[in-house]
């Protein structure tokens, strides 16, 4: 029995919402970064589900390639994000985003 597309999409949407909630509500910068990772991975789920749903037989690997690219970007993003967080921590001795409002001058 084949799992219908909508299930994947529901899981992905749930994952995205959990990620979004985490990114918006957590004060810890690392937790926010984790939320962002969740959102990216929910997209990956969507990409693969749609690829599997549209291209049943052979052909291109576009969905998987997309997912790998997203994973790569997410890795890079995590590296840069963590580096920023460490830099902020070194300067201010905190990773609480409520205290880091430098964008408001």
């Amino acid at each position: 029995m084949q799992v219908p597309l909508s299930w994947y999409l529901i899981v992905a949407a749930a994952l995205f919402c959990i990620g979004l909630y985490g990114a918006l509500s957590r004060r810890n910068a690392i937790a926010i970064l984790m939320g962002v990772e969740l959102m990216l991975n929910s997209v990956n789920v969507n990409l693969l589900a749609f690829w599997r749903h549209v291209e049943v037989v052979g052909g291109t690997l576009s969905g998987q390639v997309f997912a790998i690219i997203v994973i790569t970007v997410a890795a890079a993003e995590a590296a840069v994000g963590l580096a920023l967080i460490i830099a902020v921590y070194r300067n201010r001795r905190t990773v609480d985003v409520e205290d880091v409002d430098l964008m408001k001058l």
Partner: protein
Amino acid sequence: MNEFFFNLVWLLPLFPLLAFAIIVLWTNRNRLLSTWVAWIGIGLAWILGWTILGYTWTDFHHLTPPEDGYRVLLYNIPTGQTELALGFQVDTLTSVMLFMVPFVCLMIFIYSKGYMNYGTDEEDPHYSRFFAYISLFACGMIGLVISDNFVTLLVFWEIMGLCSYLLIGFWFDKVYADPKRITPKEAGLKAFLTTRIGDVIMLAGILLLYSQTGTLSFQQLFSEETLHHLATTYAFGNVSWATLCALLIFGGAVGKSSQFPLHVWLPDAMEGPTPVSALIHAATMVSAGVYLVARSFPLFVAVSGGAQLYVVSFIGAFTALFASTIAVAQNDIKRVLAYSTISQLGYMIAALGIGAYVAAVFHLITHAFFKALLFLGSGSVIHGVEHGHHHAHHGHHDHEAKKEKDFDANDMLNMGGLLKRMPATGWTFIIGALALTGIFPWAGFWSKDEILAEAWYSYSHEGAFGLAANWDLVIWLLLTLAALLTAFYTGRQIFLTFAGKPRTEAAKHAPESTRSMVWPLVILAVFATFLGLAGMPWANQFFFLLGEEAEMAGQHLHHGDFNWLIAGISTAVAVLGWFVAWLIYGRKPLAVPVDPLEKPLGRVYTLLKNKYYIDEIYQMFIVNPSIGLARACAIFDQRVVDAIVNTVGAFGRWLSSALKRFIDNPIVDGAVNGVGWVTSQAGEFMRATQTGKVQNYLLVAAVTVVLLLALFLVRG
């Protein structure tokens, strides 16, 4: 060759003008240098002037005014259809004036060095300025006599007016204890304003001449056809333009030559330094008026027997007598000379009025020499008495302090016996006096006698230039009477000043003046003695130069012969004057400083002493009403004109405050402030959204995406 020098005639006024500029701009701190600059300026003018005279002499046939003369044109003023040619001119009248003017000026310049106390403790604080002014003055007079037209003549005429103002008021900070005595500052102003009256009249005459003829150069103006035109066209009634213009131009001469009724400035001008009196008020400036009439003589005789000749001759003769009566009762040594000058100028004017043109110019020249001599001599006397006064009162000034202030060094009653103390000054002064009174053979005898002889000739030969014969007799009588009084007051002056014993300590200690003051006196005395010989009736150089070739109003001038009767009468009159003066003042020298004539003459003496109260009359009827009018105008100005101006101003202020209140403040300011207010409020509001927190921005973005998605879904 002579044209070479004639072309240089414009240099004559330039030399003293340059001296003036150099002194004012550069050398005024160095007094010796300033003196030399002034001397060199006038000295060069003197040498060139006599050179030109020499060349004129050799060629006078072609240089006799009015129509001949060598013109040096400098520039043309365009005046619409024609051009007004301005320049200088050499003719015999100019040359005769150039004989006298620079030379007498030079003598006075040299004298001034001593008079202004060069190199002593009493050196004048404005020493250099004095030399600058007199140089400018000399420039004015020289420029006047070489002008070939009325425009430049008027310019130089006014330069002299300015200089006379500056020089009479030279000691402008001097004030006297007696408030009624005129100060130098006031005297300068008086001279300037009084001559100005004449100048305005003269300017009117010049403008009328121009409007009638379209030219102002002497040669064209005094040519036969122009004069004929002027004499035969009528301004109004039977007054021809020639008569009218001549009378108006004569107004200028009356002011400048100090004739009645504008004579009042000259005696007060004695407040200036004495060299100025000699320069301006004897030798040159007052001569300018006579020169003007002599220069315009063809215009004056254009209408035979016209009113102008009667006016000129009467004013002259009347002034001659009138001023000499006043001189009789003056005690100020310089004032006597001042009235004597007025009187002698009256002679010249009267001579011109009766047509004795050559005699008038002759007297003008001789008078300049001996009157300069007398003035400089009087200056030397005053200088000596002042020094004697300082000497006598040196040391004890406790109780003398007040008296010293009141001492008047000009008062002849304070003098006496000065011939012994100042022999050089005394003898040269006596020579000047002999020349002035017309004693044979001094200069005044020849020149004055020629005027009287001409008057007599006109009477006995049916009047020259159409004057009634009896009129000539009246003029002759007035002038002869004036000659009597001249001898009397001059004798009085000599006896009071030089004869007898010193009446004050000051006179007792008066020293002789320095060499630079005495030498000019000696040189002038030589001229005062011998100059008359140049105008002897048998070899009258003046007639050769001026009259021989001249043709005035179509007739040749009369060459005066020696008239034994007239010469006898005038000599007798002069000797009588001296004799009476000797009887009253010389025989028994005064012991106390009171004039012996004061008692017997009584009221007449008071009248003469106060100069017929002319000054007071002018003060009452002219000066005071003018001041009153000025005050009334000032009140009108304050009450009416100022009120109008203030009202307009107040209305403007009211209007602007209303505009400010009702338009500017609420509308214009409101708009501007409103824009600012709205902007700032908007900023305040928008600012709240900028929290700087990433999560806020993210939330907004997420909500927006959700909303957009919802919209997308709803819209389908």
